[in-house]
């Protein structure tokens, strides 16, 4: 085979590949946006529930802080955490605060521990658990 023919073939092959890739990409985007299966729903729910479970474990873990006190001691079933009211003004902080900041406040004070990173897996899990126990409450950010 002559060199230019090879080159042409390569070019056309490249063009076809590109077209294919683009169409696959387009198709795939369409699939991701609209089409998910029952299995996907189950998987995502299971992922969420496992994080809620981690959150419950942290919520009842004597080692979350340093004095053995656990979140659930004051907040059975996460009650009186009212996550649906955050962010809201905290008069003692003098500003609007998010739920995770109040979780850290509790870890620092009643639990005499060290605060968690805002985006840490444990902090996400604690918030997932707190929200899950409050399922059904209407969102009322800012409410006291």
């Amino acid at each position, binding site marked *: 085979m002559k060199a230019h023919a090879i080159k042409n073939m390569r070019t056309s092959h490249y063009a076809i590949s590109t077209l294919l890739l683009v169409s696959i990409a387009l198709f795939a985007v369409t699939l991701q946006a609209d089409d998910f299966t029952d299995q996907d729903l189950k998987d995502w729910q299971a992922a969420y529930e496992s994080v809620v479970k981690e959150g419950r474990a942290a919520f009842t873990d004597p080692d979350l802080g340093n004095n053995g006190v656990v979140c659930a*001691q004051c907040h059975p*079933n996460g*009650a009186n955490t009212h996550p649906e009211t955050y962010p809201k003004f905290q008069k003692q902080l003098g500003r609007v605060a998010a739920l995770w900041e109040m979780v850290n406040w509790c870890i620092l004070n009643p639990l005499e521990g060290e605060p968690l990173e805002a985006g840490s897996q444990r902090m996400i899990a604690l918030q997932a658990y707190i929200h899950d*126990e409050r399922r059904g409450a209407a969102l009322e950010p800012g*409410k006291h």
Partner: protein
Amino acid sequence: MTDSSRRTFIKGAGTLLAGGLLPVSLVELVFAKTSDNFTFAYISDSHIQQISGNEFVRNFDRGLIRAVAECNLMDPKPDFVIYGGDLAQLGSKPEIDHGLEIMSALNYKTHYVMGEHDYYLDLGEYWESQLGPQHYSFDHKGVHFVILNSILTYDDWTHNRWSSGEERMGVMAGLDNPNGSPFMVGDAQRVWLKKDLDKVSKDTPLVVLSHSPLQKIYKGWNFWTEDAEQIQALLKPFNKVNVLYGHVHQIQYNQIGNISFNSAMATAWPWPYPSSFLKSASHVPKLTVKMNRADPFFERDATGWQFIDVNSGNVDVQYSLTDNKPRTVAFSDKKKQPQDTQYQDKTIPPQEHY
């Protein structure tokens, strides 16, 4: 500081405290003889919690120390003190010892009620060795007092499920732990109660002291006594019956037939009302005007102790709340039920926002 100068200081500080915090006068008497009038104090739910060795959770220590100090300043002095249960968090000897050491500063005779946190490690053995029987009765100035252990549960749960007392205690210590078991007074104690009450005339005022409410409010957190109706039936023939209980860490009061119910605050920490847990139905008494929602920035908020006036044969409870305005829940002769003397018809926002 020597011991004697420390005492002087506390006495001096006490005078200042007393002026600011404690009500000056108590309710007027109804009994014929002035000498028969009396009050008693009620301290409950201190949950003294060991960290390790001699280290205990400071916050909970402070709650009890404060209640004891305030109680000693009462004027007129209470005839005795009731301790409503859950002195310890996990029922261990160091926790009970540390709690009793703090309580030893009280100037009054104290009657103790058993709480589940005192009990489920060793089924009350150490507690009983220090404090005596888990249920009994006594008479004081014409009032019959009954102390019950209301935190027993099914034998199978108690004896057959756990590899150790620690494991059993750990499960029962979690208020919302689904593997817990409902509280009850149980057959044996109810038989004893019936016999005890048979000897008492029906016009003698009764005060029954239990850790759990002898009424059914919310099973999920054991704001509950499984055989409540059977106990209420035994109390029904009496003219004036008062049930005082701890466990719930919040203000509750109710009237069921002839029986008035009043709860005690904890010295350790407050609990939200079960009605704030939306996933499950509960029966917080409609009569109850709730305590203020706790503000976590104040360590002692929504904690306290109470002093109790039984002069009319019905209980009036004065809640001494460290970081909140005091509340009084008194028996209304007109409505024949306990009522908040200030808030019954006009609640304030912190009592409603959960």
